């Protein structure tokens, strides 16, 4: 778990550096080697590691718009994920998806940029598992801001009435862009949402990966054993702006400071040290090397050719169909012939 966490943290630190390249002096979102929005999950690693530690490749995970830490813990191909973020042809989605839309079918991982909309597909994967008599489970990640969204609430209900093997994991980082948690909902904790739907709601009150691991063990076990869904909420800390370039004018400095002090990675290091495990440096070095390798590899990859934009719209394109049809010759527009 520690290795996934430091890999995710270091990965995002490096992405941040790469992202800022070319975007200064006046921040321009479309400039530099990584364009578009970039949402980093620094401070949220424990929620990814503690849950994914129980998962197999055959289990499904749907990640939210802040997906890297979950992807790393689920075993998404780091090189191809990085190539995707750099918009390269050998990226997970051939450069079509980008950082918010990572898909790695090899480990049943998918992400979405639309809030809470990963929940229904996770329920679908769980439904398939149940119908086929398999013991695989599905996990849908969402943020504390997403707990008001219809797609999430409908998913809770559907999963509950059909006793589906699915786990909903709320990463409670106190913020939804500029909205503090207490102004999003009148329930104190997102886990209380479970009460209205007849499934267990569990909250882990600090981002200790070991505590998350234990809570997730029960929930995943319950799902695998055919006993239905669980809603698990994990307290995490948003160390950065909502997206890169967010000046966070709405956020008190003290809050950002507090988030940085409560660091799940440092907490995990203390746990390891107390247990007499001194592999920390070695793990750090190994994960840094892996991150460097992925980034170097990704940067060497070719960009897609422009025409590749027209591929992949359908699995089975209708004969003669093209997304950019040839214009009808202008001469015949008068219809005289």
């Amino acid at each position, binding site marked *: 778990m520690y290795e996934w966490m430091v890999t995710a943290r270091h990965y995002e630190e490096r992405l941040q550096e790469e992202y800022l390249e070319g975007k200064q002096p*006046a*921040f*321009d*979102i*479309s400039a530099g080697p990584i*364009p*578009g*929005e970039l949402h980093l999950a620094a401070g949220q690693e424990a929620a990814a590691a503690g849950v994914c530690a129980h998962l197999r490749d055959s289990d499904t995970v749907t990640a939210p718009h802040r997906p890297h830490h979950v992807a790393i813990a689920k075993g998404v191909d780091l090189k191809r994920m990085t190539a*995707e973020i750099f*918009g*390269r042809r050998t*990226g997970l*989605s051939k*450069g*079509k*998806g*980008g950082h*918010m*839309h990572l898909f790695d079918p090899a480990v049943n991982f998918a992400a*979405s*940029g*639309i*809030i*809470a*909309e990963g929940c229904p597909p996770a329920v679908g994967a769980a439904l398939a598992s149940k119908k086929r008599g398999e013991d695989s489970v599905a996990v849908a990640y969402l943020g504390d*801001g*997403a707990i*008001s*969204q*219809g*797609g999430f609430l409908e998913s809770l209900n559907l999963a509950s009435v059909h006793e589906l093997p699915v786990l909903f994991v709320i990463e409670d980082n106190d913020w*939804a*862009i*500029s*909205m503090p948690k207490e*102004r*999003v*909902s009148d329930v104190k904790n997102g886990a209380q949402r479970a009460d209205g739907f007849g499934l267990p709601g569990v909250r882990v009150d600090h981002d200790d990966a070991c505590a998350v691991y234990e809570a997730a063990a029960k929930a995943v076990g319950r799902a695998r054993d055919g006993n239905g869904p669980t809603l698990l909420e994990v307290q995490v800390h948003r160390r950065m702006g909502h997206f890169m*370039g967010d000046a966070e*004018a*709405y956020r008190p400095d003290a809050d950002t400071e507090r988030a940085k002090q409560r660091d799940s990675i440092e907490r995990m290091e203390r746990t390891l040290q107390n247990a007499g495990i001194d592999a920390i440096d070695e793990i750090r070095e190994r994960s840094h090397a892996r991150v460097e390798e992925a980034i170097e590899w990704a940067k060497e990859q070719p*960009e*897609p*050719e*422009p*025409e*590749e*934009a*027209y591929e992949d*719209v359908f699995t089975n394109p209708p004969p003669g169909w093209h*997304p*950019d*049809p040839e*214009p009808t010759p*202008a*001469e015949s*527009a*008068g*219809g005289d012939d």
Partner: protein
Amino acid sequence: MSDSETAPERELTMSRAIVDAIASEMRANDDVFVMGEDVADYGGIFDSTEGLLEEFGREKIMDVPISETGFIGAAVGAAQVGMRPIAELMFADFFGVGMDQIYNQMAKNTYMSGSGVRVPMVLMTAVGGTYNDAAQHSQTLYGTFAHLPGMKVVVPSTAADAKGLMHAAIRDDDPVVYMFHKRLMGIGWMPAPDGPKTPVSDEDYTIEFGNADIKRRGDDVTVVTLGLHVHRALEAANDLDGEIDTEVIDLRTLVPLDTETVLESVRKTGRLVVVDEDYHSFGVSGEIVARAAEGGLDDLSAVRRVTMPDTPIPYARPLEQEVNPGADDIADAIRGVTE
């Protein structure tokens, strides 16, 4: 604009012009209020409500939970009992999450009630790509909203238009979908092209819906477009200056659509190019061509469409640039119809 000559002029970004109009309408009418995600402390992700919280407070500039069905529907309900809400859907792409409230309630209740209820609200939303945010955050969807009857659809391309159209939208007794292009807003982190920042009168003024604006006069080719692509079309037309004399029409509103201005121009030039950042099929470009054909077939010698192809919008830069029409694509099409 004639009345802007009388008032002291300031150059405003499009976002400032929008805020200016909303603030002025709120001062004049207690029933006007704003609700949306991150509209208060953040001032709108695209600065569309920047600074309003300070003057009007949280009761009037309401941050709402991420629940598009809930808050857009609540705007419909408040409008039906006589208020004038402005609801912001952060990106037009998120329409799916609240679409029932938009097209089955907001758009249809006037008709289904036999005008028993009115829905005087504005649904304000950001559209467009050009910054590599991929398929769920880059669509324009002009056609989707204009296709469904019952909503007026407004697309400003300059600050002066943005203000006048917003005043008109808020005062309108029908639901208005107000779609602003992110790239035109003049926000710090997304540089705008030259063009959208214009002098804007301090005074209130409205721009009547259904009046396309001829942004450039010419005799050889008519280019019909809207939003960001007004500026790209102007760039193409200027590049071709001396070679081809291009007229550029900015539609400004899709519902109602100013067919007459398009037809008059096509009768003069005989050649039509439609530029649209929305998908190629079943959309604005097809509609304009159809109206030109219905009303001016005898005058038409050539037609071209420059659009987004029917693909979801890709992330990688070479891919997005391929599908999103640039000034050079427009210039090619203008040349194409004169061959």
